[in-house]
């Protein structure tokens, strides 16, 4: 089991990915070997206006260099401040937190549905699958956005050798439309149904992916977001209602949930 810890790290690389996206790499993070795709770190942002940490999915790690990467989009006060950090700034990370994605079986095809800030954990997931020997041709990576500018770091997905399906609402890259259209098409056409869905992205996309999985009986998981005061299950602030009744904490019981589990 991972034991989360708070630790100071050094921002050693910051890359502007355009369209308000940034990649930030922190060193030296002692828990890199315990990180799993789907988990997140809770980042403390040194600023007058920010009180809570901000949750960011792990986008990748380098065991050798003890580096951890997050990819974030500037959407509000906290992420703006994060985007203003300088290389060599000290940043406190609490993590790794949350329940990771479950691995697909070798025989299964992973159908990844990514969008917006849901992309980083799925990039990490696909990278790790490939690294651990999952056949890249058994990874179908659907990546949706409004326009080509929303689909960041495409070269990194391509390099993995997975089957990459960009989809944009304006058709500026890949198929035109909402990503869940082509996903459904693929699922319906899949010759054998040894599929496993992995979804993370904006609310609409998550809902559609969840609904699709339930309707077509494809197992899989989705990763949720919620504002998170603590990130470690002690404040009860980040709850979502479950289909079976009751609440689950997104930070501790999730953020990864089984398809059909959460009342979205």
């Amino acid at each position, binding site marked *: *089991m991972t034991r989360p810890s708070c630790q100071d790290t050094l921002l050693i690389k910051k890359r502007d990915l355009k369209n308000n996206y940034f990649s930030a790499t922190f060193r030296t993070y002692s828990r890199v070997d315990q990180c799993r795709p789907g988990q997140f770190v809770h980042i403390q942002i040194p600023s007058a206006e920010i*009180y*809570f940490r901000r949750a960011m999915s792990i986008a990748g790690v380098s065991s050798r260099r003890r580096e951890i990467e997050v990819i974030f989009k500037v959407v509000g006060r906290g992420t703006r401040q994060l985007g203003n950090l300088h290389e060599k700034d000290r940043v406190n990370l609490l993590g790794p937190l949350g329940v990771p994605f479950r691995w697909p079986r070798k025989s299964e095809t992973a159908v990844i549905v990514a969008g917006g800030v849901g992309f980083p954990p799925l990039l990490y997931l696909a990278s790790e699958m490939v690294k651990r020997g999952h056949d890249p041709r058994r990874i179908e990576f659907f990546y949706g956005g409004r326009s080509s500018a929303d689909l960041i770091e495409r070269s990194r997905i391509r390099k993995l050798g997975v089957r990459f399906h960009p989809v944009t609402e304006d058709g500026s890259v890949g198929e035109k439309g909402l990503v869940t259209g082509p996903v459904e098409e693929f699922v319906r056409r899949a010759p054998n149904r040894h599929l496993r869905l992995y979804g993370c992205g904006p609310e609409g996309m998550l809902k559609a992916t969840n609904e699709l999985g339930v309707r077509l009986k494809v197992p899989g998981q989705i990763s949720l977001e919620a504002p998170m005061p603590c990130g470690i299950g002690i404040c009860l*602030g*980040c*709850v979502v209602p479950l289909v079976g009744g009751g*609440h689950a904490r997104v930070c501790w019981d999730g953020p990864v949930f089984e398809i059909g589990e959460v009342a979205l």
Partner: protein
Amino acid sequence: MSPDLRVSFAGVEFANPIMTASGCCGYGEELAKVYPLSKLGALVTKSVTLKPRLGHPPPRTAETASGMLNAIGLANVGIDCFITDKIPFLEKQKTRVIVNVAGSSLNEYVEVCGRLSDIARVDMIELNISCPNVDEGGMEFGADPVMTEKLVAAVKKVFPRPVIAKLSPNVTSIATIAAAAEQGGADALAVINSLVGTAIDVETWRPRLTYNKGGLTGAAIKPVALAMVNAVHEKCRLPIIGIGGISNGSDAVEFFLCGATAVQVGTALFIEPDVPVRMLGELKAYLKRKKLSSIGELTGKVRKY
């Protein structure tokens, strides 16, 4: 010689004066994955009620300047599940266990406390008579000296070990309520619970909490909490547990100087779950530097002008 961090009050000894505040550490299971709970002077559980409660629908927390609002609404597993599921875990923890109890009527408080009376692992009960986030009970009790005294007296009859009354800051005179609790037989006072507050989303015109208001906690309220600990200390001889915006050793020292015997850390746990561990080191270093041998040498020692 290392300074002694032990404190004792109401006949109970604590390894150190740092406790985790109710509602900010669940029943201890999650924090135990970050560090051994033996580091804590005591763990104070989330408020337990007679029946399980889901609490209010989300959003039920909001960030504010140096603080936060919450209207969790006393979400908890209920006394039955608490006894069967949570007590076994707590049995194994090498720390003092204080169970925080809430209710919507005097009878409910008494029933829950009665259920806890023969569980030896429950070292103390903390009565939450100050929750701003429920429609019935909660703050009503803590705003009325007569009800406060009655409630404490009733609980004292069914629970044989010490009872702490946790006071609300949302009153004209907290010292009056403290005196009533003392009159009722309280063994100690916890000062303070959260301040009533709210925040509005100017885009949607909706409150940021579905309960429309909530409790303000965190660093923002520390000055208010300190003044209230001081006011209670001046009027009442019961030991005081200081609460409100504490996030480091120096904050704790301020509370001791104002009259606290121990402190609880709440919201700060959300930002830094191991803050109690850091604070222990800071307190030790402080005592050493000031050549003091115990926390007791600080309690109430503020040098007023």
